């Protein structure tokens, strides 16, 4: 009952159990945080808007993105993954979401920012339905913790639309 093997086994089991409980409590402590993020996205320019040879519409645009996401950080946050997606409806698809730009915010200090950028990923439709269409821009964020449950949420900004004609 007191051999080295039994003592080592007992110690290992106990320490693993304690570690697991600590991780669970750490994750639960994230629920105490009440975030209040804000964001604004302006489309500065539609650079071009064409129909590809395969028949899909493609658009390139330049955006001004400003946001304050500092309230999302807790002591258990490793990083914040944010991305801007365009959401719209087409005759064939009830929902289309296209990610235009993303970034990783590693620390609270960087969570209040302003960036002027063109879309990082190509905005290609499944079809050619974009002319004159209205769409929303949503800023999504994913809180990646040091350990435990991941959270995600978004802010929806409405009122954007494509030009009526290709250019």
């Amino acid at each position, binding site marked *: 009952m007191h051999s080295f093997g039994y003592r080592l086994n007992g110690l290992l089991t106990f320490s693993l159990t304690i570690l697991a409980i600590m991780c669970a409590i750490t*994750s639960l402590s994230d629920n105490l945080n009440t975030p209040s993020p804000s964001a604004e996205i302006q489309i500065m320019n539609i650079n071009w808007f064409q129909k590809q040879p395969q028949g899909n519409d493609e658009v390139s645009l330049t955006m001004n993105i400003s946001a304050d996401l500092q309230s999302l950080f807790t002591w258990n946050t490793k990083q914040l993954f944010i991305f801007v997606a365009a959401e719209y409806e087409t005759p064939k698809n009830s929902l289309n979401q296209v*990610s235009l730009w993303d970034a990783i915010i590693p620390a609270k200090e960087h969570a209040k920012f302003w960036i002027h950028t063109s879309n990082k990923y190509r905005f290609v439709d499944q079809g050619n339905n974009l002319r004159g269409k209205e769409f929303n821009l949503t800023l999504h964020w994913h809180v*990646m913790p040091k350990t435990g449950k*991941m959270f995600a949420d978004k802010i929806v900004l409405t009122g954007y639309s494509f030009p009526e004609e290709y250019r």
Partner: protein
Amino acid sequence: MGWIGDTVDSVKSIQIRQLLTQAVSLGMIVTSALIIWKGLMCITGSESPVVVVLSGSMEPGFKRGDILFLHMSKDPIRAGEIVVFNIDGREIPIVHRVIKVHERKDTGEVDVLTKGDNNYGDDRLLYAQGQLYLQRNHIMGRAVGFLPYVGWVTIIMTEKPIIKYILIGALGLLVITSKD
């Protein structure tokens, strides 16, 4: 020579009842582990409720050796979710983020494009020849939680199988030679 005689004696002196009791308790341990695993599969709705991150394509968020807890609900797949999927013809599941979603109005089926956070381009290069999007049946689950570093045990046992054999051999020896 006397040593061989001693071993033969001790083998003969093992009582059948004791041996059977040990075999049953070993069987109980193995089956309860299996019950827990299958139970987790039912609760999370995913074929594989826990996966180990094998590549660095999601750094700095997930590093090689982290484990992810998966859950698959009937909720529609939306952009930004981290999903684990299998490509036809490949056995290793891939953990990447959804960047594009096209959901059909009539059937509710969904076309999904994924990309690793740390990769430059999207996953079209990884998909099967001619495949442009993933569908729901390719996706094993959504990542909902994670634990760092714990997966290294699995990676070491897979990449250096000798360690797995040594471990199982040592455990087996321990069970047989223990007094209870």
